[in-house]
């Protein structure tokens, strides 16, 4: 694995390697001294062309726990309007001998371009690009779903797949890099993905996508789900006629108290996930968000672990077995 740009090209072995490593990193996070010296003397650049305090904090925590030196470069506003800035920035980073670049960008494909255009030759880690991909988010979701499965079955997380798990991803699929990256990764891990959205918020040609598509949230629930992942909806979408009003959106596609009660009453346990930040009362009710079915805070914790794992694997060429001798 040279870069982490997307989850589509990850094999099952790659995915398990990252997730098993992340489990170990999660154990580090429980210790009093939360540091590993594996990236000592190496420099990681956090290149954020788009604001995201949460993701940046998570990456920074991961880098610090791996003892890396950190350079934060925030270039908000210089993205799409001034095209040359990505190349210039890349060349600057190459000149200061950065060892890896974490990039968040509003333009789909910018991380791939950074990795492949020949401007800089270091591992590139996609921290979210446009409406394309957000691989570490999908990995932290998968890590969370493994923990959920381990909890309900009593199995160990390490080596666990998501075979047969039914995961509904609900909301603005069209504009969601989280949905896309989860589609590929969860499918690779054996899960059955169900997308739930109004037709306006789905791409036009998804026949080849390995998922079932529902316009009706209730029908999706009736078809059986083990986890629901609620996507953040932007209120501005209603001004472009994607839906008539936030009230209607909430009523038809929100995890309302009534729907949540129905999930809760099912004969099996259901996990509720959300990539955050949540719009309580819009796509997710407070009841659902704050219930003990909610894995939202575990997702945040797991975010640091998968980012540690990805950085470790990309920058050292290591593997999960490094941490599980004899396994």
């Amino acid at each position, binding site marked *: 694995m040279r870069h982490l740009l997307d989850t*589509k090209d990850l094999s099952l072995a790659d995915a398990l390697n990252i997730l098993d490593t992340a489990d170990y990193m999660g154990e580090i996070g429980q210790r009093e001294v939360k540091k590993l010296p594996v990236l000592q003397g190496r420099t990681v650049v956090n290149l954020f062309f788009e604001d995201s305090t949460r993701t940046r904090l998570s990456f920074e925590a991961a880098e610090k726990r791996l003892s890396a030196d950190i350079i934060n470069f925030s270039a908000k506003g210089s*993205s*799409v*309007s*001034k*095209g*040359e800035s*990505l*190349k210039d920035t890349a060349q600057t980073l190459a000149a200061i001998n950065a060892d890896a670049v974490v990039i968040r*960008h*509003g*333009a*789909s*494909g*910018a991380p*791939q*371009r950074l990795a*492949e*255009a020949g401007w800089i030759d270091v591992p590139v880690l996609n921290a979210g*690009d*446009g*409406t*394309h*991909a957000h691989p570490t988010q999908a990995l932290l979701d998968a890590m969370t779903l493994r923990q959920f499965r381990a909890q309900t079955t009593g199995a160990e997380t390490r080596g666990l797949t998501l075979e047969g798990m039914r995961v509904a991803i609900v909301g603005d699929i069209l504009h969601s*890099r989280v949905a*896309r990256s989860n589609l590929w990764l969860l499918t690779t891990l054996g899960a059955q993905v169900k997308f739930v959205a109004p037709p306006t918020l789905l*791409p*036009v*040609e*998804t*026949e*080849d*996508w390995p998922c079932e598509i529902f316009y009706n949230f209730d029908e999706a629930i009736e078809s059986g789900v083990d986890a629901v992942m609620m996507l953040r909806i932007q209120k501005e979408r209603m001004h472009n006629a994607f839906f008539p009003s936030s009230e209607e959106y909430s009523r038809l596609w929100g995890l309302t108290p009534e729907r949540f009660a129905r999930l809760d009453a099912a004969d099996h346990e259901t996990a509720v996930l959300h990539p955050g930040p949540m719009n309580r009362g819009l796509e997710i009710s407070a009841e659902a968000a704050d219930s003990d079915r909610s894995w939202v805070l575990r997702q945040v914790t797991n975010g640091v672990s998968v980012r540690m794992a990805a950085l470790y694997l990309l920058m050292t060429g290591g593997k999960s077995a490094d941490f599980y001798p004899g396994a």
Partner: protein
Amino acid sequence: MTKPSTYLIKGASLLGEREADILIRDGLIAEVGADVSSPEADIIDAKGLIALPGLVDLHTHLREPGLEDAETVETGSRAAALGGYTAVFAMANSNPVADTAGVVEQVYELGRKSGWTEVQPIGAVTAGLAGERLSEIGAMAESRAKVRVFSDDGMCVWDPALMRRALEYVKTFNGVVAQHAQEPRLTEGAQMNEGKVSAELGLAGWPAVAEESIIARDVLLAEHVGSRLHICHLSTKGSVEIVRWAKERGIDVTAEATPHHLLLTDELVRTYDPVYKVNPPLRTEEDVMALRQAIADGIIDIIGTDHAPHPTESKDCEWACAANGMTGLEQALSIVQKTLVDTGLISWADVARIMSAKPAEIGLATGQGRPLEAGEPANLVLVDPAATRTIDPQAQATKGKNNPYRGLEVPGAVMATFYGGHPVVKDGKLTTPVTHVGN
């Protein structure tokens, strides 16, 4: 012309049909036949070469005035000559826009001075390409540039009332409106063809219907007002069906396809390499095949290159902020050979029709696209169909390095281009331009 000379082309295959010698004297084809001899002529051995009338491109962006870092009339004309073109129509989206007699005369003069190919300016339909009011259409038509083709290319003449008026008004001068068919509301922020690939890549889509709905509207408008209409760079299967319907109905519409839309598909966008970013966007394999068939069926009338050079920095960036467009003057004939001739869909005589005669007819370029017969202007090209070459954007005459065929091996090579009886290209290389005397 200065230095009118005599050239004798020996043993060329006329339109790939029959072998003959061609004698060129004083800018004209003096004689065509077997065993022509002329003691004073420079002999050009054309064994194995195909002679075609000089190519005519109805859709070129020469960028001058104003965007000289992308291309100039001089560099674009050199590229044209190397590509076998003896005439190019320069699109109006320069800076200032070619919407006045002054600008079109400037471009026309620059073309005459450079002397590698005939440069015929296209005038904007609307002032500043803004789509609000008509440009100085009459003044441009009556200028020394004698503009007959009007286009807001790059922008669609979207307002249906304005489009109707433009179609009517240009009839005064027997002009034609060349429409860039793109419904603007359906393509806001569009980055690539809307389909399977855009869904995965998370790039905003440019739906086929945005092109097709404008074409449907415009053929009906053209029918209603009895005007002729030209559709630029048609790119979808659905557009072909609409044009087919319009032609069957007797509507005076002509359609154009670019070489890149005959070969490349949106699968290439998976690289996120902006060299593949173009408007209209690369479509699907199904569209590509439909365009090829439409050319064979005569539904699409001509090849227009949409040669669109850009400075390197406009493409050396992330996809979303890259400029639309790709160069193509120097490969057009090879791509046509690869996709249409070598596949058995059309003959070389058809190539002469779609790349020379018909575009000249649409653009009213007198002296271009003529048959290879005695008495005709000596605008012709010699092609080696057996050659293969690997495309190197750095080795081209155009300033634009934004070439989507880099590294691709293609068939066919232009060995000579005669423009006004003068070999501006010989042995596949530029020689000297034509020097115009007088006005």
